[in-house]
């Protein structure tokens, strides 16, 4: 033993958005620990904008990253990231965790639109995203996973997305892929060789009364109404660029 214990990083970022009483949105909490750094950027109208900077260097094996976002009643928040997040193998080894908690109050709005999550060869990441949306909340959430950098085999990536809206779970899905994932993940029922997979969740109170109409967008993407005030676009594509194009196109149909 060399007396040195290599452990992963534990880091948390917290954002709270609150209506400022003048038609805008304040950010009374905007904290991050390396490598998570949320930065406020120029706002537009009543919406506050935040960019997550520096997530790019992680998570590494053994890391445990947490992002907590709370959007309070009447506030509007837009969160993006400066670059793609790359899951890498780390010295500490073992699984890395990335947990995102998004709480959107009744009458609040959140756009959660980070860049892609890329699973590099040898990495092992478990990412969870849990959304709690109040009865009148509005949400646009995009999640994109890319399996391996160019010409590289993917690491192991397991991703669970749970969305609760107006008190019921409208979406609960987990995708496991890469080396060590349960069998068949790259076969004809799951990914069939596609290397980019993504989802777009849109929660709007009016979808409860008037759900979107289900529509296949070719054989690789579909827009569907969920069992509740929400819609989902699921897509697979050969690469990140084409996936983004599919999701962007689908979003314009919803706006």
């Amino acid at each position: 033993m060399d007396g040195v214990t290599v452990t992963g990083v534990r880091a948390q970022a917290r954002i709270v958005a609150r209506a400022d009483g003048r038609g805008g949105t304040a950010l009374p909490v905007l904290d991050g620990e390396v490598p998570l750094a949320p930065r406020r950027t120029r706002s537009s109208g009543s919406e506050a904008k935040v960019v997550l900077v520096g997530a790019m260097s992680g998570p590494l094996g053994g890391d445990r990253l947490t992002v907590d976002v709370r959007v309070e009643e009447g506030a509007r928040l837009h969160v993006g990231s400066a670059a793609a997040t790359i899951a890498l193998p780390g010295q500490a080894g073992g699984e890395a965790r990335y947990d995102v908690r998004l709480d959107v109050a009744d009458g609040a709005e959140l756009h959660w639109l980070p860049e892609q999550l890329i699973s590099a060869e040898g990495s092992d990441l478990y990412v969870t995203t849990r959304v709690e949306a109040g009865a009148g909340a509005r949400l646009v959430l995009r999640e994109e996973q890319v399996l391996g950098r160019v010409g590289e085999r993917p690491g192991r990536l397991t991703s669970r997305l749970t969305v609760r809206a107006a008190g019921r779970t409208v979406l609960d899905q987990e995708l496991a892929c890469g080396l060590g994932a349960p069998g068949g993940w790259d076969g004809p029922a799951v990914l069939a060789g596609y290397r980019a997979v993504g989802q777009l969740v849109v929660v709007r109170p009016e979808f409860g009364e008037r759900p979107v109409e289900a529509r296949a967008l070719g054989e690789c993407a579909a827009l569907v109404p969920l069992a509740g005030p929400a819609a989902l676009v699921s897509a697979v594509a050969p690469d990140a660029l084409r996936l983004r194009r599919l999701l962007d196109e689908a979003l314009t149909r919803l706006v």
Partner: protein
Amino acid sequence: MMTRAALLVLADGRFPAGGHAHSGGAEAAVKAGRITDAASLEEFCRGRLHTAGLVAGALAAAAALGADPGELDAAADARTPSPALRTAARRLGRQLLRAARATWPSLELDAVAREFPKGAHQPVVLGLAARAAGLGPEDAAHCAVYESVSGPATATVRLLSLDPFHATAALARLAPELDRVADRAVAAARRARAEGVDALPAASGPLLEVGAEWHAAWPVRLFAS
């Protein structure tokens, strides 16, 4: 009163529950060129087993353990984003419920028929049918995970004129994995009894979901899903 033969009655492909009209996504995968032979059928079944099969197995086991059918049905909805698949699962659930009530009359099955006039998700009904037949969660899970692969295998024999011996051999090769998935499903169902339905697995196959909507939009198809 439990008998092993009750499991055979429930799992029999000739049990009159309407499953033969569904391909479990195989028809879409065949048309897209993703299933072309016995080897790609086996990979399709393996992927379906570890995703939809695991979820169905856990729902069935939880229902067999006596979990609340309403909560399980809502959990099935959240794990089935494709409305075409939600409709198919409810239709199959309704058909299975009719057959099960005639076969193993039970107050619990009667209650589910009243609570879900349009049908509950098929795996939930399957678990309740197993319970009414005096079977346990392991039996319910095995039934559900086996159905998750036997349906596509039978359908592919018809769609591709595949040699039925080759399709059956593919199922036999999957048998050890079926056992492992059924065990995981039962373990998750027991956890869900203590922690609630969020503890149930939520494994998904994007192409199963997307393919189901693509398939539902065809004007002519051999299978309902």
